[in-house]
């Protein structure tokens, strides 16, 4: 009898294990418990280690002066500003590279993708070679190569003026950066800005009207040209009427560098060029895949209905191709944003180089700095994918 009593609980456990639902619950409880203990172990280790060397976990250092210079800032920054300001400057620099790079990569990628599909054999092969070469070489190497080439082939500011590295005599390309005239708006410039937004609103209203007209009568109004006129033409007209309310500050050579104007630094140029070069080759392949995914029958059907070539492209091919192109395009945008963290390799001060680099080294607050950097990138990723999911849904709704 004693032995029976001993085996009974074991039998119960075994039976429990053989039951599918019970087993699922047991496995989950074990997983969560394991994870919990692992986290607890890690945190307790961290606490002990931090106590041993006398460091806490606090973000107070963010308000102390940073004490280092940043070579490109979009908001006011000096080396007496706080670490927090340095982080924000870095964040803005990251965003600047990401946005510029995304625009450039998309434009180049779409052009390359379409050219890759062109019936022209020579162009197809050239684009194919370009894409294969670009995407089979690490992006960090491209960044370093472009930066190295810019630095070693561009002239010094003095030589830039004397050797004719200028554009129309007002913009200068040199190894200190690309100096452009800077527009400084006068108060009357506000009228132009307002006109621009009015133009956008007008274009939207006209578009709705055009759709109504088309639904009612079948007549197609020239939406595109009217929109161009409203969005670009109206502000230009207002700009001219208010008497060109912009003062230009031109770059001038003084001593060893230019003064005035505004400069695109070589680090920024190298990073943006390399990132968009690299990403465009991936986008080109996505675009090509998307266009190929629209079966030829769709084009033929549209032609059979008597729809013109350009409207077939606009109404039949592109909407269907976009549905295939957009999901991978999202991840390319995300990749570009994340790859912009390689800025540190060429000394461009993005978020990783400021708070995750110099601030970290100066204050010794690895935990806090890395937490900030990781959270910032996580937010980027979640935001971009949320936006793209929304866009995807919208495109699907229009279709079906």
């Amino acid at each position: 009898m004693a032995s029976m009593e001993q085996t009974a609980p074991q039998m119960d456990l075994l039976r429990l294990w053989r039951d599918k639902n019970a087993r699922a619950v047991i496995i989950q409880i074990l997983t969560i418990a394991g994870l919990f203990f692992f986290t607890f172990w890690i945190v307790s280790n961290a606490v002990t280690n931090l106590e041993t060397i006398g460091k806490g976990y606090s973000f107070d250092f963010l308000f102390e002066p940073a004490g280092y210079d940043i070579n490109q800032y979009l908001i006011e920054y000096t080396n007496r500003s706080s670490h927090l300001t340095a982080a924000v400057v870095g964040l803005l620099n990251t965003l600047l590279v990401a946005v510029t790079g995304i625009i450039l990569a998309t434009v180049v990628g779409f052009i390359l993708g379409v050219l890759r599909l062109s019936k022209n054999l020579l162009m197809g092969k050239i684009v194919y070679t370009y894409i294969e070469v670009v995407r089979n070489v690490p992006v960090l190497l491209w960044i370093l190569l472009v930066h190295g080439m810019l630095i070693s082939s561009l002239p010094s500011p003095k030589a830039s003026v004397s050797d004719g590295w200028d554009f129309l005599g007002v913009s200068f390309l040199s190894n200190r950066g690309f100096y452009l005239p800077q527009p400084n708006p006068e108060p009357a410039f506000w009228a132009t800005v307002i006109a621009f937004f009015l133009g956008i609103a007008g274009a939207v209203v006209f578009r709705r009207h055009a759709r109504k007209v088309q639904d009612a009568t079948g007549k197609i109004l020239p939406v595109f040209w009217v929109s161009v006129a409203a969005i670009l033409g109206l502000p230009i007209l207002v700009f001219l009427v208010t008497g060109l309310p912009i003062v230009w500050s031109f770059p001038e050579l003084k001593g060893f560098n230019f003064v005035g104007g505004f400069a695109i630094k070589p680090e920024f140029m190298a990073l943006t060029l390399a990132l968009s070069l690299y990403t465009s080759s991936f986008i080109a392949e996505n675009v090509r895949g998307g266009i190929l995914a629209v079966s030829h029958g769709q084009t033929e059907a549209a032609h059979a209905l008597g729809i013109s070539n350009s409207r077939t492209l606009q109404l039949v091919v592109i909407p269907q191709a976009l549905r295939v192109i957009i999901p991978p395009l999202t991840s390319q945008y995300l990749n570009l944003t994340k790859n912009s963290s390689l800025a540190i390799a060429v000394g461009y001060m993005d978020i990783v180089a400021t708070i995750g680099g110099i601030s970290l080294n100066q204050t010794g607050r690895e935990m806090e700095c890395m937490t900030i950097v990781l959270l910032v990138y996580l937010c980027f990723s979640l935001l971009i994918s949320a936006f793209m999911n929304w866009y995807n849904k919208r495109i699907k709704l229009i279709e079906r």
Partner: protein
Amino acid sequence: MTDVTEQNYPPGKHPSLPPPRNMTGWHVWIWKNFFGSITNTVLTFLSIFLIWQIVPGALDFLVFDSVVNAGSRAECREIADGACWAVIVERFEQSIFAFYPEEERWRVILAFILLFPTVGILLFDGFPARAKLMKFTIAYPFIAGWLIVGGWGLEPVSTDKFGGVMLTLIIGVTGITLSLPIGILLALGRISKLPAMRIVCVAFIEFIRGVPLITLLFVASTMLNYFLPPGVQFDLLLRVLIMVTLFASAYMAEVIRGGLQAIPKGQYEAADAMGLKYWQSMRLIILPQALKISIPGIVNTFIGLYKDTTLVIIIGLLDVLGIMKTALADPKWNGLPEEVYIYTAIFFFVSCFAMSRYSLYLEKKLHTGHKR
């Protein structure tokens, strides 16, 4: 004219006539491919212009005006204006072994040579006695690790002496071998019916995919030691290997999840109906099909991982790119970024291009009639 109109054949028995003269031949081919329409013609001239602009200059720089034998950059410039490959010639051995002790380098070479049969057995069906030699493939990582790190009768070599092509291959091969199984487990966890499992896997995958690899490497190099019990020190290379593997496996998981979701529900149900247990059905029914669909994605992840190994230079490890960068700091060779980076680029291009070609071969081989 007469022989065309005459009907000497019974209806339906007429032999096929050759296509019209103006539809075949080389001139038609040229017309079709290069000058068919206005756009086509414009593109042709644009291409010729591009080639004419780029190719002669590039060839002059890379080949005709290049210098192979010289002692320094200044000597190169005296001889010709082109690329100064002398820097590569001088640094070639270092670019492969970095600071690995010279008398022990045969071990690395042996490990590298053994990699070829290993990969060959693994990748190609036609390999002689493949099934028997598979044991060797499984043993290879341990043999190679022993050869390179040392111990047990071999002189131990500290990992901070590792570098160059060797380090790139170590990180790349380790990451590739480990990320696939971990990625499969994560993917299975993500589509699992158990909510706790699913949440853990989703959180892990999304966190890793949401942050750049470089920040994870920073975490590995600056703070990982805080999370270990006091006194325990991890080798930097080991920490990097762990991070790179985890990073790649999160991407791998997403690729494989795509494959798993493409498998029709009927396959899962059929496996259940056969009385197969979870792991049996996955191993025998679901995964073989899912992995087959995801091959292009898997190889792309491999290529991505291999290219990402260059990022380790930012935390101070000297892979092939890092070791060549040190040449730029040498006063003798100062100011030759193009040569050094082009050499490294060629190395990566050859490896990555080979991988993508292999993926095409595999796709064709496994193309067993599921596609139209």
